[in-house]
């Protein structure tokens, strides 16, 4: 009889503890009510709303230009991609075709955002499992991306660079050079990341075979992004419903079939290379063109429903706009990747150790404002 089986056989009294809302492994105000038997988890019940700002209700009051700014505050590590989703939905409604220049710049910044987000995730995943060094490595490299954003957009995190019809202003003259410098340097850093964490035997023992999510469950629970792709569910919106310039670049959708924490880790690490490849294909030939299509000062979408799907660093973000023909929408819904990904947590955390739950959560890469909205 193994230790695990023995532990399962000896029954103790079940009780519940609160994990959060102030817990370092949640990276935000997420409260999980854990029902535990000793150190074995029997049930995980998320209790949300600690950072709910009712962005959907605020959208019903605001103009379409204002809505773009609210979406920064959902998944703040994919702020550019969130902005783009709303802009694409509004452009769909207005039937505006943005210029090639806008499409290419948006795509490059999307991928830089993805790299920055994955860097931060890599750093804190190491930290959650007790390897503090990775945090400093990742933040050192992510800093370079934030500097590029600051120079071009004026902000480092909540960039607000997209407006309906295009971009707020043109890229900074240094943008291309600095992006290339970053890519050249970052390529030497990923092997360093692998030496530090990916090939570490302790890390393997903490992550392999932990928190296994099957493909069927991933689809049924609406899991998306790298989490779904680690279970073999081909869910990449960039591939299946291309937007911006994704239809003109060549990249692989990373798929694994193991579905465990280590597979989710590997998907993100390999996505770094794909993002680099996408940027390299675009950075040298940014086409000339106008930066912003002409839109009226007051945007009124025609009566109807508009839906736009994009791939953020965490998965599929859906923006549903229901317009009654007025200057503000009748109803806006954000289908956030984090909310659906969180719903599967209870299902895959039954009868695991609390420490393994922390590893699983780290590999899901939750951003709590994205779950709460």
């Amino acid at each position, binding site marked *: 009889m193994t230790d695990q089986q023995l532990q399962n056989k000896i029954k103790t009294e079940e009780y519940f503890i609160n994990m959060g809302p102030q817990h370092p492994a949640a990276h935000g105000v997420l409260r999980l009510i854990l029902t535990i038997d000793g150190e074995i988890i029997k049930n995980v019940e998320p209790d949300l709303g600690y950072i709910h700002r*009712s962005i959907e209700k605020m959208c019903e009051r605001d103009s379409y230009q204002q809505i773009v700014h609210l979406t920064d505050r959902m998944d703040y590590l994919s702020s550019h991609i969130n902005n783009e989703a709303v802009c694409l939905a509004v452009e769909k409604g207005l039937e505006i075709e943005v210029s090639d220049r806008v499409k290419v710049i948006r795509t490059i910044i999307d991928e830089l955002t993805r790299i920055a987000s994955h860097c931060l995730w890599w750093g804190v995943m190491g930290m959650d499992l007790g390897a503090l060094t990775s945090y400093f490595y990742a933040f050192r490299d992510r800093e370079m991306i934030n500097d590029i954003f600051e120079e071009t957009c004026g902000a480092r995190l909540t960039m607000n660079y997209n407006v309906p019809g295009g971009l707020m202003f043109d890229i900074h003259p240094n943008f291309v050079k600095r992006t290339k410098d970053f890519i050249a340097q970052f390529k030497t850093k990923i092997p360093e990341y692998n030496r530090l964490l990916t090939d570490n035997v302790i890390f393997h023992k903490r992550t392999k075979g932990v928190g296994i999510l099957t493909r069927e469950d991933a689809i049924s*629970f609406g899991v998306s992004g790298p989490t779904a792709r680690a279970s073999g569910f081909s869910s990449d919106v960039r591939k299946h419903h291309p937007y911006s310039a994704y239809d003109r670049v060549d990249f692989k959708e990373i798929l694994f079939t193991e579905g465990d924490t280590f597979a989710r880790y590997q998907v993100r690490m390999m996505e770094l290379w794909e993002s680099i490849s996408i940027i390299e294909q675009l950075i040298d030939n940014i086409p000339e063109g106008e930066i912003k299509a002409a839109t009226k000062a007051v945007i009124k979408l025609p009566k109807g*429903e508009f839906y736009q799907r994009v791939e953020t660093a965490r998965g599929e973000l859906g923006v*549903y706009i229901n317009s009654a023909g007025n200057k503000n929408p009748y109803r806006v*819904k954000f*289908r956030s990747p984090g*909310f659906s990904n969180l719903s599967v947590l209870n299902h895959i955390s039954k009868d695991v150790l609390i420490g393994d739950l922390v590893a699983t959560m780290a590999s899901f890469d939750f951003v709590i404002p994205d779950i709460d909205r």
Partner: protein
Amino acid sequence: MTNEDLQHIITGLGTDLEFTAEGSEFLNVIVPKEQLHNICSQLKSHPELKFDYAFCITGMDWVPALGVIYHLESTELRHQIVVKVMVDDRENPTLDSVHDIWQTADFHELEIFDFFGIKFNNHPKLRRLFLTPEWEGFPLRKDYVDEANMIIK
């Protein structure tokens, strides 16, 4: 599969189904609420439809009707469809839960219950997810008033 083909197959699944594609990029199917669970279950199991991925579930207040919009996709056949269901009773709106068909509906139905007050039959544990248990009213309804916290222009 084209929208016409989808419409042809889905027409046979129930009675009194309304179809529209106006003002939307998807084929919209409006389902009577009594048939919701039956239709959804067939949408998933039908060999030519296989809608196994509910990528968005939205609560709506159409005034006076409340309702739910399901955005569905087949991960194998890659076609998409929108299912809408309406309920007229604002005092005690009730619909059937579809969490046994798409498990993602579990959380999305909690969100809709929290903000629109629509109750779901057979939901495993219907509760306030975001708001506190003692919260009064349903904030995303159009007639919700909160003078302290809402800025109305």
